[in-house]
């Protein structure tokens, strides 16, 4: 049950301000996104329409603390079908981004962030990999790319995630 006593009328405006959140208010709840969604096809706990409706109603805590928010595979099947032209996958991503600022960041993403800061890439390039590449006649690659840490520092994302 949804108790509107706890609704935050400003929540939707916070989402609109996020990169990709612009289309939120155009949603009229037709459910084309949910009907197109391959994740929902296999697991009904994920429902993009429900996430968007709850966001419009201002159910901030329900939306941000829901583990199912992170089930979106960002496949854009919904985006292609939305009659209102909302880039639905981008909108869900905007809600994820906002959830991160509110202290809800899945552990896996924190690990990826640490790796990118340290290496500039997701996988460590070991000497073994470089030798294998050489054997195959593939050109060498950089083991680390320190410029990535500079970007992370500039946007301050690490502080936001660790908040």
């Amino acid at each position, binding site marked *: 049950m949804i108790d509107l006593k706890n609704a935050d009328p400003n929540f939707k405006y916070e989402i609109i301000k*996020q*990169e*990709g959140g612009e289309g939120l208010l155009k949603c009229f709840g037709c459910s084309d996104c949910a009907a197109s969604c*391959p*994740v929902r096809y*296999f*697991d009904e706990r994920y429902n993009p329409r429900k996430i968007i409706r709850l966001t419009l109603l201002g159910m901030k805590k329900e939306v941000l603390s829901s*583990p199912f928010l*992170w*089930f*979106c*595979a*960002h*496949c*854009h*099947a919904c*985006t*292609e079908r939305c009659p209102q032209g909302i*880039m639905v*996958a*981008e909108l869900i*991503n*905007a809600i*994820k*981004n906002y959830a*991160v600022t509110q202290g809800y*960041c*899945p552990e*896996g*993403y924190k690990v*990826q*962030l640490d790796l*990118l800061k340290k290496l*500039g*890439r*997701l*996988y460590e*390039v070991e000497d073994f*990999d470089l030798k*294998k*590449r050489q054997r*195959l*006649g*593939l*050109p060498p*690659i*950089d083991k680390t*790319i320190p*410029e*990535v840490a*500079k*970007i*992370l520092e*500039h*946007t301050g*994302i690490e502080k*936001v*995630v660790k908040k």
Partner: protein
Amino acid sequence: MRKYALFLGCTVPVRAQHYELSARNCAKELNIEFAEMASASCCGFPLKAVDAETALLLAARNLSIASKMNLNVVTLCNSCTAMLSDAQMQLKNKEFYKKYKELGFSYPHEVIVKHFVRMLYEDIGIDAIKKIIKKPLSSLKVIAHYGCHYMRPSQLYGFDNPEVPHTFDELIRTTGAQSVEYVDKKMCCGGSVLGIDEKLAVTMANHKLHIAKNNGADAVISICPFCTVMYEDNQRKAEEQFETQYGIPVLYYPQLLGLSFGLDKNAVGMRFNRVRPEALLEKIG
């Protein structure tokens, strides 16, 4: 000769060298030159769910490397293609460009980003590829897996049909192999939810493996390293979860193409395919 900057991303150069090797060797046959992008990093996609702006800045920095080389970019991973294409659009946005400049990056030339397969379809063309096929793979029946970010979102790409894609099927048929028409062609591999809910991700991957088996396919043909992780590396998990047997090889498209060019199996890295493709190789002789 056509020349592109080759963007490798994170996974391909260390976990899918057979994809890179076969793509480079096919490119040579097609008179395409790839220039290396020194200091290229992760495309940024893994950070998009955390902070889209940070992800876009990582992507835009990678574009700055190609821009200084005055070359367009070819990618091998679908998600890298989406992320870099998004950054290409964002660089036209004054506010984003300002943030990009603050980091000391430059963008002297506009850079166009294309997936390797799209580049083959649009820039090289089916007819030119057909001309150098030496060994048509007419004994093979395969399933094309496009992967989501090959043609979606259409707002970003404006390429192929996002609901009923066909370009990759055409390229597969160019090799002589049969590309099976099937429902749910655009079904996601589940890769993006692997870190969140493994069982669900494997269930999604299983859907297409099941289709491949039902159609008697010799292989699933992939063009994205992450989709391959789902269909190949997690195939055994799907077999366990659904109490079935698949044993379906997952080939990268340039491996298939290279074989049809008459390249040696080692030149397309066939020994690195984790689900063994011996039966398939025997079939094509």
